[in-house]
């Protein structure tokens, strides 16, 4: 036993202590010991991929069910993003929402979606860490650091196309992202590949990913039906992409109010107030539906007419009239694109 212990090091001690103090049956203790030792000795088959494999370097944000860290693999030195998920209730075991979400994410494989490398468990803690590939720069930072490139119409087009490709993939799997914003999009500065990330696990836990040191922009990209707490579906993501599209062009957030109510009023003041099916229209804004977007937002003058057309279809207040990610990719705006993604 002592040999095995010394061979297996910390992983085993953690595992053992749980088995040891909570179980009366000594056989179980022995069994668990061998579980850990045999896997360690054989090297190939890893039993529980432990958090020891990674080092947290700094906290970068927080979201739905725990913090988000930048980290690195102790062996390969490869940088990763670590998303912590902790379980409040031990009696329940691994929560069903965690199992469902991770098994979904495991199926996601797309060049415009940040890859989930593996899931590691933290011994003695009621949590797991999702290990994602790391990318050095998000879209927000990119727009600040490299304004010249980020302002280039071809780059905007190329980024928008990649956002929509990733989103169409999500939607084709019946997955809503619900937390699209520039801080959740990673850019590789070498080949300008953009990838969607989902660190807040918004759809599972209703929590948005908030980056440390950034403004809380949770509601800036929220679709009106979300702000109004109405039923919603995939169109909410297209709305967010529309807001980000406009932001890339004008260099400032399209709707950036400090509260959700103001946010909704701001949307109506720019786009006009729609007639909602239930007839709950605010009288103040009646009859100003579908304003000319280019006239309402002066910064958009640099955008070509096809771009304006696509943007106004993405920012259609009525979700059922909003263009889908799939159709947006076929829009004339992308006809003359020079890059193939």
């Amino acid at each position, binding site marked *: 036993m002592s040999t095995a212990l010394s061979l297996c090091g910390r992983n085993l001690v953690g595992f053992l202590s749980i088995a040891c103090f909570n179980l009366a049956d000594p056989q179980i203790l022995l069994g668990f010991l061998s579980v850990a030792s045999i896997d360690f000795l054989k090297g190939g088959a890893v039993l*529980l991929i432990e958090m020891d494999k990674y080092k947290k370097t700094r906290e970068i944000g927080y979201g739905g069910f725990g913090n988000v860290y930048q980290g690195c693999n102790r062996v390969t030195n490869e940088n990763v993003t670590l998303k912590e998920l902790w379980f409040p209730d031990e*009696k329940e075991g691994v929560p069903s929402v965690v199992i469902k979400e991770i*098994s979904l994410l495991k199926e996601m494989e797309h060049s415009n979606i940040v890859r989930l490398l593996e899931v590691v468990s933290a011994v003695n803690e009621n949590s797991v860490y999702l290990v994602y590939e790391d990318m050095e720069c998000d879209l927000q930072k990119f727009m600040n650091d490299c304004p010249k490139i980020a302002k280039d119409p071809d780059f905007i087009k190329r980024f928008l196309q990649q956002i929509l490709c990733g989103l169409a993939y999500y939607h084709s799997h019946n997955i809503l992202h619900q937390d699209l914003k520039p801080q959740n999009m990673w850019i590789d500065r070498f080949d300008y590949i953009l990838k969607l990330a989902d660190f807040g696990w918004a759809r599972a836990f209703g929590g948005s990913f908030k980056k440390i040191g950034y403004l809380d922009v949770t509601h800036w990209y929220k679709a009106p039906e979300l702000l109004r707490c109405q039923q919603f579906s995939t169109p909410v993501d297209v709305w967010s992409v529309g807001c980000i599209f406009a932001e890339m062009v004008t260099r400032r957030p399209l709707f950036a109010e400090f509260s959700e109510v103001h946010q909704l009023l701001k949307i109506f003041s720019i786009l006009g107030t729609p007639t909602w099916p239930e007839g709950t229209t605010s009288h103040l804004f009646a009859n100003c539906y579908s304003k000319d977007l280019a006239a309402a937002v002066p910064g958009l003058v640099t955008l070509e007419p096809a771009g304006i057309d696509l943007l106004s279809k993405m920012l259609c207040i009525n979700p059922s009239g909003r263009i889908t990610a799939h159709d947006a990719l076929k829009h004339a705006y992308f006809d003359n694109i020079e890059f193939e993604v």
Partner: protein
Amino acid sequence: DREIGVIGFKSLQSSHDMTGNWIKCARLEAITWILKTRAIFGFRFQTAYLSVTYFDRFLSRRAIDSEKSWAIQLLSVACLSLAAKMEECRVPALTEFPVEEYNFNSKVIQRMEFLVLNTLEWKMGSITPFAYIHYFITKFCKDSPPRNIVSRTV
């Protein structure tokens, strides 16, 4: 070291033949337990089916040594609990699963859940024949699909 190594879970290549017969019996017992427990909690049949696929997938990647019937029992609990979490609206607490001979506390079961999840690489959303059964039943008996046909099919 070797002593310790041969008890409990093993990598698949070693002593595969010796355990063949034992594992067949153990699997049968596990399935019996899963079906009995399914009835107790009122789980759907696909939940039981799914848990058996987890059980088999797990054993195709890791072998369990004979004489370790507690390990089989613990594996059955973890598989059924995981399947219930994928399929059922209401999932019992880990300690509510009726295990007669052993006393597994929730921490140990949760560890086993992790072990299963990692072994199956968290790919838990397997499609079972139950996804298609209703479709085919409606195709075959257009007018009046017999009642309880799914359970009878099982």
